[in-house]
């Protein structure tokens, strides 16, 4: 019960997002955990889009290995889509279109789309939109989505505007009734019926980019410089959408600024300039943009400038596939820069963590006086997830070690890169600080404690040693791994980011198959003591990640050489999120 999935295949640009989101939200409002995965093409209009809605009483959110309900609304791909339908599944399709399904082991539901659309009252140019509502209504009938919940979802979608709600809901209702009339036995016979639950009470349905953007806002972001790129754009859009409302100052002025830069080099350059001058500055990008940011990343790290970079990963190398997901930028982000550069990288695994790391990243950046990367991905960032509500920051804003004029006066001296506390972090002063001692010339060139250019070997070495002390401080301050220990386990699983869902579900499958596992989800780089400890506790650890080369596994091997031999890699990347079945099988093979 409440454990199945639906894929709606449509043509992009046809407004099917409204239909799919309405279905999801209705199910969600029926108290049932739900998760959506939109597989869309890298173009604007006319190409096939697969939207998979997973209904899971147990709260599983990984991409399902098999989807028993198909809405075949794209004739170009319908044949292949039908072929992929498991026996016993159901196929809803426009009965008045050209395509005719030919399978006897699945239930076939032709829908009178044209007729219903014609009767809908939609203007001609909105017909594609209306057509999608037909499958909403039919599905509702087949699997038992409450019409009231659907109505509520449409009200939500159209932010209460009565006319579109009425128009769309009209089609839904008509299609519902027509389906009941055409296939009166279908609902009862359906193996896939929804049952109201109370599992989503208090929860929200949100995508990671929205959560991340809101996290940044509640983290006090004051400057966003960015350059458009899929799948990161909606993160910046979130800031544009919410900041005016949430962050307009008492006198009506914005307490933030957003600049669309001319490219990613400039975007990070601006963030660095703003971070230097005391703003909470960030940028958001994806792989190609990350690559372009390499030189500035090195500068921000070496000149010790706080700023935050969100990398919403898509599959690479190079331009790759802009609308396909992967976790492939881990090594790139960690080592971004030439010379001995390594960074702080946060790895949110859920939308709730996207929010949390959204604000925490600024605290870390300012505390550590460095650039902080946050690696999300298309799956996490652009898909809708059921989640606990966003939790208000638990700690006050940490602006780090910044000396005011008064403090300088008291201290009587200022050495930018002194390390009195042994944490590798010197106090900084902000431009505009009126104290005569405050000034310093920031630079990416070698410098001594006083930030003065120096070619002395000892100065270089001392500075790098301090930067590594700071890296060690970062190890302590970043979010620690989440560990679930199973005392019966000899095998440990390790993953990060959006692969979490597939791994959790796989653990249940493996346990059922008699293979209990422990689990560690890494949440940040640099890696700390805890990771080696976890590895040491298991005979073998399988590192699961959605990239081709097993990048986290590589980093763990570097970090825990003593136990490197215990690490096994399960890395897979084809643009789709991992499935639990794949993970479980791979683990079975290795362990």
């Amino acid at each position, binding site marked *: 019960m409440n454990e199945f999935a639906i894929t709606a295949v449509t043509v992009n640009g046809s407004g099917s997002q409204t239909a799919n989101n309405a279905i999801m939200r209705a199910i969600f*409002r029926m108290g049932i955990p739900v998760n959506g995965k939109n597989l869309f093409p890298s173009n604007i209009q006319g190409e096939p889009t697969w939207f998979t809605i997973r209904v899971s009483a147990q709260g599983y959110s990984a991409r399902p290995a098999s989807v028993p309900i198909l809405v075949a609304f794209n004739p170009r791909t319908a044949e292949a889509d039908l072929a992929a339908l498991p026996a016993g599944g159901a196929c809803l399709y426009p009965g008045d279109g050209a395509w005719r399904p030919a399978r006897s082991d699945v239930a076939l539901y032709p829908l009178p789309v044209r007729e219903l659309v014609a009767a809908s009252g939609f203007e001609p140019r909105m017909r594609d939109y209306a057509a999608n509502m037909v499958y909403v209504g039919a599905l509702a009938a087949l699997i038992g989505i409450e019409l009231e919940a659907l109505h509520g979802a449409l009200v939500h979608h159209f932010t209460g505007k009565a006319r579109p709600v009425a128009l769309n809901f009209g089609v839904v209702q008509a299609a519902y009734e027509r389906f009941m009339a055409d296939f009166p036995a279908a609902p009862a016979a359906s193996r896939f019926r929804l049952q109201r639950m109370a599992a989503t009470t208090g929860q*929200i*349905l*949100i995508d990671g980019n*929205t959560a991340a953007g*809101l996290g940044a*806002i*509640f*983290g*006090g972001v*004051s*400057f966003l*410089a960015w350059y458009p790129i899929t799948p990161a754009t909606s993160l910046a859009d979130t800031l544009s959408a*919410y900041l005016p409302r*949430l*962050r307009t*100052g008492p006198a009506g*002025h*914005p*307490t*933030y*600024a957003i*600049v669309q830069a*001319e490219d990613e*080099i*400039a*975007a990070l*350059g*601006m963030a*660095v*300039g*703003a*971070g*230097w*001058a*005391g*703003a*909470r*500055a960030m940028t958001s990008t994806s792989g190609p943009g990350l690559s372009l940011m390499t*030189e*500035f990343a090195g500068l921000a790290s070496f000149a010790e400038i706080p700023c935050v970079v969100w990398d919403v990963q898509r599959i690479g190398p190079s331009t790759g596939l802009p609308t396909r997901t992967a976790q492939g930028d881990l090594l790139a982000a960690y080592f971004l820069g030439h010379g001995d550069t390594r960074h702080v990288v946060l790895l949110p695994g859920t939308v709730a963590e996207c929010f949390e790391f959204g604000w925490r990243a600024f605290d870390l950046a300012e505390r550590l006086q460095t650039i902080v990367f946050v690696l999300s991905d298309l799956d996490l960032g652009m898909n809708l997830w059921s989640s606990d*509500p*966003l939790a*208000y*920051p638990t700690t*006050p*804003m940490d602006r780090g070690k910044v000396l005011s004029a008064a403090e300088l006066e008291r201290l009587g001296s200022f050495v930018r890169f002194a390390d009195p506390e042994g944490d590798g972090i010197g106090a900084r002063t*902000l*431009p*505009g*600080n009126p104290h*005569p001692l*405050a*000034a*310093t*010339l*920031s*630079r*990416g060139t070698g410098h001594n404690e006083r930030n003065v*250019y120096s070619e002395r070997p000892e100065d270089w070495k001392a500075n790098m040693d301090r930067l590594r002390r700071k890296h060690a401080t970062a190890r302590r301050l970043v979010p620690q791994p989440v560990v679930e220990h199973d005392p019966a386990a000899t095998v440990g699983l390790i993953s990060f980011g959006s692969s979490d869902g597939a791994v959790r579900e796989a653990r249940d499958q493996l346990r059922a198959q008699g293979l209990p596992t422990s689990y560690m989800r890494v949440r940040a780089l640099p890696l700390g003591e805890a990771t080696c400890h976890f590895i040491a506790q298991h005979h073998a650890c399988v590192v699961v990640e959605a990239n081709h080369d097993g990048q986290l596994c590589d980093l763990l091997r570097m970090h825990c050489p003593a136990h490197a031999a215990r690490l096994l890699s399960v890395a897979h990347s084809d643009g789709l999120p991992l499935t639990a079945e794949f993970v479980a099988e791979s683990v079975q093979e290795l362990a």
Partner: protein
Amino acid sequence: MTTARQPVNALGLTRADYRGAPSTLCAGCGHDSVTSQIIAAAFELALPPQRVIRMSGIGCSSKSAAYFLGRSHGFNSLHGRMPAVTTGAHVANHTLLPLAVSGDGDTGSIGLGGFKHLLRRNVPMVYIIENNGVYGLTKGQFSATADEGARLKHAGVNELPPIDLCAEALIAGCGFVARSFAGDAKQVRELIKAAFAFHGTAVIDVISPCVTFNNHDDSTKSYAYGKAHEEPLHDLTFIPRYEELVEEFAPGEVRDVRLHGGPMIRLRRLATDHDPADRMAAIALLEHARAAGEFITGLIYLSEGRPTLAESLGLGATPLAELPADTLRPPPEALAAVNDEFR
């Protein structure tokens, strides 16, 4: 600190208070002359050092940011990327006064795109290009402003026409475009003062000879050439406050350009009568000078009125960098309301 003997400015600071670290540039480098005039201009304007930020990229020219205004914060950033860093700094704190030095390689080669986009945004700042037609710090390669037909040891002959950074600035919508010569100390100084008073990005392209790699007499970026060929458009004086105007001139002899907030630039007519308010005339002037191989200096174009970036962004009086935590973080109720939208 200030001994009684040294002259002090309105802030009670001496000229020495506007100096930086000792220069490590070659003896005679044009950039050091520009540095002196920056110091002089800042001193004479009585700029509060703490409000100025000195910004630069990479190159001998950019290194010179260390040699002036040691009491000002600064950022010696990346090659060609000073514009982006300055843009960010301005947005974070628009009460700061950015003073930038760059090179012809830094701005005209690697940094050309960023330069143009900075101008488009009208980030208020003084942008000095120390233009020597060569990459000094990497030992003498052609930059994008090198003379066509110039010859260098390794690179051979430069077959490409030079980029005119003033023309580039004009086309990009820059409202303050000037060209000067490191050998013309007064003009450089007065232009810098005027640039500080300008409401927007003020570009000064200073021909600043590289004595080590590009000072041969047939280089248009050499001292000899500059001294022999400089044709100032006017004799230029910056007048901080209108009331200070004392000298009287015959009509037609001077052109007074009033700036936002009170100050004025007095242009005393020389051979030609260029109207710096006329954009097309400014472009034509440069085009003509290029074709005729003339080295004109002075204020080529001035037009205020475009909003600065901070104005476009609608920022309030308090810099973003100085907003308190409770302004930056919305209250818990706000989050509760947001959460509700996702149900």
